[in-house]
């Protein structure tokens, strides 16, 4: 029963090798979906290209449905998976800052790595910026720490915090996504084409 490495079904030594393999697949898919192009990424905010929305939500839904099916069939213990911890205000403030950075720079860290690999100079500068940003964060850590460590709600899921039925939530979530895809296509037809 999965997850395999935490349950010692695969020796821990394989972890790094598996990491590289997963990384290769991840990078390949991101690049092949066009995420190495900042103008394509930014398109989602101006309505001329919704690739980010489509890829992102399709991936989220496919993975969540798949994980819950695997949990249901007993291949995977969903309670053993790493759940991103919730620090309420850190998540909101960090997210807002990242959003501005996203529009300004046109990449997020994963996609910028892809763009770095295919020689986009703006991505090199962007990665430099990220490193600088992390450096600034660490230097200012004493100032930021109350936000960073405050409002900790635990490693919770939506099921814990709202007491929702996960299956119904996934169902509604996928319908929302499909509606979003349809709306995205309609918007794209309305918006002036931008070539990049």
């Amino acid at each position, binding site marked *: 029963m999965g997850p395999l490495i935490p349950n010692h079904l695969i020796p821990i030594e394989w972890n790094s090798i598996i990491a590289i393999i997963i990384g290769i697949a991840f990078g390949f898919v991101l690049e092949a979906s066009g995420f190495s192009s900042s103008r394509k990424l930014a398109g989602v905010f101006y309505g001329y290209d919704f690739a980010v929305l489509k890829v992102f939500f399709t991936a989220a839904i496919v*993975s969540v449905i798949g994980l819950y099916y695997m949990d249901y069939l007993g291949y995977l213990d969903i309670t053993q998976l790493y*759940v*991103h911890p919730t620090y309420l205000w850190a998540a909101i403030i*960090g997210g807002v800052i990242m959003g501005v950075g996203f529009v300004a720079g046109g990449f997020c860290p994963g996609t910028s790595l892809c763009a770095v690999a295919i020689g986009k*100079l703006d991505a090199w500068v962007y990665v430099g910026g990220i490193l600088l940003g*992390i450096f600034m964060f660490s230097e200012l850590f004493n100032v930021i720490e109350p936000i960073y460590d405050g409002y900790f709600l635990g490693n919770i899921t939506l099921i814990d915090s709202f007491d929702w039925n996960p299956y119904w939530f996934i169902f509604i979530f996928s319908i929302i996504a499909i509606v979003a895809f349809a709306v995205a296509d309609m918007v794209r037809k309305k918006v002036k084409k931008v070539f990049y």
Partner: protein
Amino acid sequence: MDIKNQTNSHVYWNPYFGGFILGIIIIFTFYVTGRGLGASGAMKSSVVTLVDTVAPTHAENNAYYSTFISEDDSPMNTWLVYEALGVLIGAFISGGLNGRIRWRIQHSPKITSQRRLVFALLGGILFGLGAQIARGCTSGAALSGMAVLSTGGFITMLAIFGSAYATAYFFRKNWI
């Protein structure tokens, strides 16, 4: 028209197909390792390593760096760093297969390369800062978080896209 087609041809995968494969990769990652994908963690490790080599005492005194430094192990020896190396390789393979590898600065024809680079740097700084505060970026917090229905993941995702849409108007000249 021909020229336009050449420069604008969408040689990328269908986004739904890409998303589907990405979803399978996330499932596989969780199934094998019990954790999600990530990207900015590798950059954090790089910064920590860099500071640790240049100014070791400073790194040890800083409350943030010191959590990632241990005596017997390099901060680079983490899962996310290997994964990020894989991302570079994978993107290089994909770009190579489709002939997309070349040195260039991609920007809207309305702005200069210089302006693009300045904004890229600015955006990078903001994203690096934000990713540390929120403990993850779009892949680590939002995408992997959403896959396990993490509350924090959803909040981060909404905050990123909300603020991006809210501020998109001010940056429109850069893109359209």
